[in-house]
């Protein structure tokens, strides 16, 4: 298996550890170009199928790295980036260096949290909830982006980029909102690697 599946890119020290990796591999390590380290595992294809299990493994590897050494910064890749050789991957790291640097600056010391607010079936909801959520959460978050409103039941679907140091305050604000709007359901998720706040796509260049 000479293909490399990429989870993300970081500037910190290289890592190597055993885990359940995407596509049946059991070891995660880094391929480096100068000070950029791509976190990879071996895989037998350059076009991996996104099964639920492998999508979960992709997330788990990123979380494991984010939790290391008191919190590392990694620019996450979307599922499915695989390269046919170390050389191909290093070429991409070289070409996309400025973009990775910029992305690292944006997300340094930060995590992504997700919030979906869902109404009960057939319930009418006052628009005021959106304002209330914005008033409480936006001042704590560094940035936020709206997500796809894929269901009529969704009242709000947003991702927030939050400093690790502000995590507790953000959690508390969400709990307060939940208490206040107990006729609505809150789905609060994370922390994730900040997928929604980086825009480095490297797959097309392989």
């Amino acid at each position: 298996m000479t293909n490399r599946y990429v989870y993300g890119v970081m500037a910190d020290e290289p890592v190597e550890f055993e885990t359940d990796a995407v596509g049946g591999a059991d070891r995660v390590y880094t391929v480096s170009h100068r000070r950029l380290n791509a976190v990879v595992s071996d895989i037998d294809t350059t076009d991996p199928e996104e099964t639920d299990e492998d999508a979960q493994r992709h997330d788990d590897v990123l979380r494991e790295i984010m939790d290391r050494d008191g919190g590392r910064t990694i620019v996450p890749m979307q599922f499915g980036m695989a390269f046919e050789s170390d050389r191909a991957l290093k070429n991409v790291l070289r070409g996309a260096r400025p973009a990775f640097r910029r992305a690292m600056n944006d997300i340094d010391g930060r995590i992504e949290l997700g919030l979906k607010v869902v109404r009960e079936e057939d319930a009418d909801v006052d628009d005021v909830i959106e304002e209330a959520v914005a008033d409480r959460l936006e001042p704590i978050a560094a940035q936020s982006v709206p997500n796809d409103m894929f269901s009529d039941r969704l009242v709000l679907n947003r991702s927030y980029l939050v400093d690790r140091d502000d995590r507790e305050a953000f959690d508390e604000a969400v709990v307060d909102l939940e208490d206040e709007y107990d006729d609505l359901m809150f789905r609060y998720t994370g922390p994730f690697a900040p997928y929604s706040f980086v825009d480095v796509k490297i797959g097309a260049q392989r």
Partner: protein
Amino acid sequence: MFILDDLLVRPFVGIVDTLHTMALNEMYDIDALEDELKENQLLYELGERSEAEYRERKAELEEEIEIARDVHERLTSGRVEVKS
């Protein structure tokens, strides 16, 4: 207006062909199916759907999405025969 524009721009495409394509697009709406897949996941996570219900609906939707992709591929490659 979509139908009118389409017919003006492509005068050789018969109205039956255009309507048929529109009907197929609506019947095999991949975006709507994908939205339903996400909703199914959300309702499961919120505890409104049991794991069995979630898995059953997920399998159905994935199959429908696969069929819809196949139909769209045939549509764009012109392999869907339009009978008028």
